[in-house]
């Protein structure tokens, strides 16, 4: 049978199933771009303002979240868009593509639904093909809309086209990266985790390369995050780096195809091994069960956050060098060198909190999965009460969130301390991360609250997390009003180490988190269990 038989039907099926999900992604991403163009144009009206902004983009923080820095000499609207928006767009696209591909391949196999389809006249490659084609279509649509909004605003059509095409093609590469990762593990969750890890490494490769050398070095060129900006839109456009995207996609696609041919439906390349015939003395209660279920994820997230934070920390000398070589910069940014390193680290610290917060929400969300799958039913039919069941789950989530936060702060501080040869940074950054802990706990607490009171509304938490990340990353740039900024979970407390720690808001925030968790816990004890 033709391996691609039935692909057309499956494509329509994916589009039907995900019509809302796909629309939200496409609209959210293009609206961010379309909205940013006039916003940036209005905000920076004079050359002086634009050059001030360019100086900011020439700092390490600017390079991490901006790019290699093309067009900073004459920072007009075009280069500004390319510098300010690319990383946000690419990170969002990476998340979208990984989730989409895993959802329609490995997660389907895991649930057994794929078996149902494969028993019909549907080829072995049809499901991955349908997942990749729909992902690529969405990516290219987003790219086309980005092009349309830029060209429509009066920017040079050729440069806008190169940029939009680059964004879309980068999305396609992320989709194929995910397709390779889904071949390796039996589990959708692990596959997504592996893919995100790869994406993180690729991101870091560009960051380290770009920070080390203006315009990036060889390391930058290894990363699909770099290529779109290496076409230098609005700053002497060169088309050829775009060719790297289809080339990389083709190589990865062949790799995925080879791996797929070596395994059975539902199986991973790494086979499941038999385990112990009985529970060890450690696996004896609800706390240890929750912990056992999550230990792999907690360790992976902690390690990933630590390594990312550590590598950001090691960039601290670059921050100093940059300021030494450009004294004007220090004047523009104000304050002494320590403050500038601190503000760089404080910004990265917020990203540590984002990671820890996302994990906290996912961790509490597992309670929901346990409930729908019927495992909660079985456990709650033993001598385990509702409060103990959910309470221990929340405790695990809190501890894991705190661990990831501390480990992130520690990594950041350690990297800085080693490269600046100043041990004080380690304690300073660990403390700074802990001072933001309530923000990281907020998402898990909200999941708990909704889980107990109105489980249907749990997706609101993702909306809040998405908004918080958006506001913290782009809010200042887009000139969001203070009130709108305050809705971000990360903008409620002062950002250490540049700001002073303030106990009152910290305790108030922590109190709100505890209350939300407690209300969720109490409400869960009073509602019916829902098993699907």
């Amino acid at each position, binding site marked *: 049978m033709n391996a691609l038989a039935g692909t057309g039907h499956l494509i329509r099926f994916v589009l039907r199933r995900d019509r809302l999900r796909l629309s939200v992604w496409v609209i959210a991403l293009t609206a961010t771009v379309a909205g940013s163009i006039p916003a940036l144009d209005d905000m920076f009206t004079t050359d002086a303002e634009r050059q001030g902004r360019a100086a900011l983009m020439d700092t390490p923080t600017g390079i991490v979240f901006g790019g290699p820095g093309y067009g900073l000499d004459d920072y007009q609207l075009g280069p500004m868009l390319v510098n300010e928006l690319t990383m946000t767009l690419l990170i969002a696209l990476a998340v979208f593509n990984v989730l989409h591909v895993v959802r329609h391949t490995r997660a389907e196999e895991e649930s057994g639904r794929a078996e149902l389809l494969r028993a019909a006249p549907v080829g072995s490659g049809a499901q991955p093909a349908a997942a990749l084609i729909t992902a690529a279509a969405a990516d290219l649509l987003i790219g086309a809309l980005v092009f349309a909004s830029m060209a429509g605003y009066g920017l040079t059509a050729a440069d806008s086209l190169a940029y939009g095409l680059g964004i879309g093609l980068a999305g396609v590469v992320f989709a194929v990266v995910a397709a390779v990762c889904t071949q390796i593990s*039996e*589990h959708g969750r692990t596959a997504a985790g592996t893919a995100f890890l790869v994406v993180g490494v690729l991101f870091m490769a560009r960051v380290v390369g770009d920070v080390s050398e203006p315009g990036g070095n060889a390391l930058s060129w290894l990363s699909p995050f770099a290529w779109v900006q290496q076409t230098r839109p609005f700053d002497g456009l060169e088309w050829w780096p775009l060719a790297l995207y289809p080339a990389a996609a083709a190589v990865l696609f062949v790799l995925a195809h080879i791996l797929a041919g070596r395994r059975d439906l539902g199986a991973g390349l790494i086979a*499941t*091994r*038999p*385990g*112990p*015939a*009985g*529970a060890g003395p450690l*696996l*004896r*209660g*609800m706390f240890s*069960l929750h912990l*056992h*279920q999550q230990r792999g994820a907690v360790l992976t997230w902690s390690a990933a956050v630590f390594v990312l934070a550590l590598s950001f920390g090691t960039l601290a000398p670059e921050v100093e060098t940059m300021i030494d070589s450009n004294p004007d910069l220090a004047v523009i940014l104000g304050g002494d060198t320590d403050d500038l390193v601190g503000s760089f680290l404080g910004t990265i610290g917020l990203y540590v909190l984002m990671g820890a917060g996302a994990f906290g929400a996912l961790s509490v969300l597992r309670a929901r999965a346990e409930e729908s*799958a*019927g*495992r909660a*039913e*079985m*456990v*709650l*039919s*033993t*001598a*385990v*009460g*509702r409060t103990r069941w959910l309470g221990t789950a929340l405790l695990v989530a809190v501890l894991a969130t705190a661990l990831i936060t501390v480990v992130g702060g520690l990594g950041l501080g350690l990297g800085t301390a080693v490269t600046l040869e100043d041990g004080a940074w380690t304690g300073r950054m660990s403390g700074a991360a802990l001072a933001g802990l309530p923000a990281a706990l907020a998402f898990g607490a909200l999941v708990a609250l909704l889980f107990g009171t109105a489980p249907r509304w749990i997706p609101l938490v993702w909306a809040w997390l998405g908004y918080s990340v958006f506001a913290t990353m782009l809010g200042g740039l887009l000139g969001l009003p203070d009130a709108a900024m305050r809705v971000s979970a990360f903008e409620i407390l002062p950002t250490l180490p540049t700001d002073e720690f303030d106990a009152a808001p910290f305790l108030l925030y922590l109190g709100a988190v505890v209350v939300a968790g407690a209300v969720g816990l109490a409400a869960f004890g009073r509602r*019916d*269990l829902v*098993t699907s």
Partner: protein
Amino acid sequence: MSTAITDPNAVDVRGVDKSFGRFRALDGLDLTVRTGQVSGFLGPNGSGKSTTIRILLGLLRADAGRVRLLGGDPWRDAVALHRRLAYVPGDVSLWPNLTGGQAVDLLGRLRGGLDRERVRAFTERFELDPSKKARTYSKGNRQKVALVAALASRAELLVLDEPTSGLDPLMEAVFTECVLEAKAEGRTVLLSSHILSEVEKLCDTVTIIRQGRTVEAGTLDDLRHLTRSSVRATVDGDPSRLADVEGVHDLAVDGDRVTLEADHDHLDGVVRHLSSLGVRSLVSNPPSLEQLFMRHYGEEPAGAGNGHGGETS
């Protein structure tokens, strides 16, 4: 570990209602299980069996009616009562990364006591491989895990929701043995099932529900008396006059061979008439549970047998 049993009924449910949104899952349901007995709980898919069981386990709260389990309120006293019961869900879902053996041990510990010797014995009887990860188990094997955990527990009450739907006939036989042993140990069993032969073999009493209502309840003998036996005979004389005999239904005559359904109250008269015709062979079968079951599900819901509500022998 069984505490003093004072209540004659392990399960006592009276007039329970439960709605999910606009869907009425239970509508005045009655269910009684006497302590020490094995009670069958029958009904078509979606009739409310699992909902009833979840109410008994305190996982759902009844909208109205009275629910007593082991002398307590299953919603309020859930944890205390759960120490005394063991539950096997209809669709067993296990933690994919735990082995079957780990899951059995864990469930035992969560229930408040793990008897390793009993676990080992039941694991062997059900031929369960305890070192395989749960994600690799078939439905039958997942069910075995829950069964081993429940049967090894020494709980006073076993609540089993279609526990054999994934087992092969060999394992079904092992299951039957185990339930009979549990009964001999004085334990109470509530067995929801679709396998009527299993219920006939095991159950002292049977409750049949439909669309959230109890339509039939009592001992199998009681229920049989409410209905008819099928009679097949070969006779010398002319059987056509049988149609006039009181209590005869669905008469079919094929030469000298007769088949008919006879009301239990009139069986004596029917046999006398047959005998007067000169019987060469005679077979009479009590109604099978299947016939009882079909009688209730074949017909329209119109309040069938509502009068028998819940009174066990």
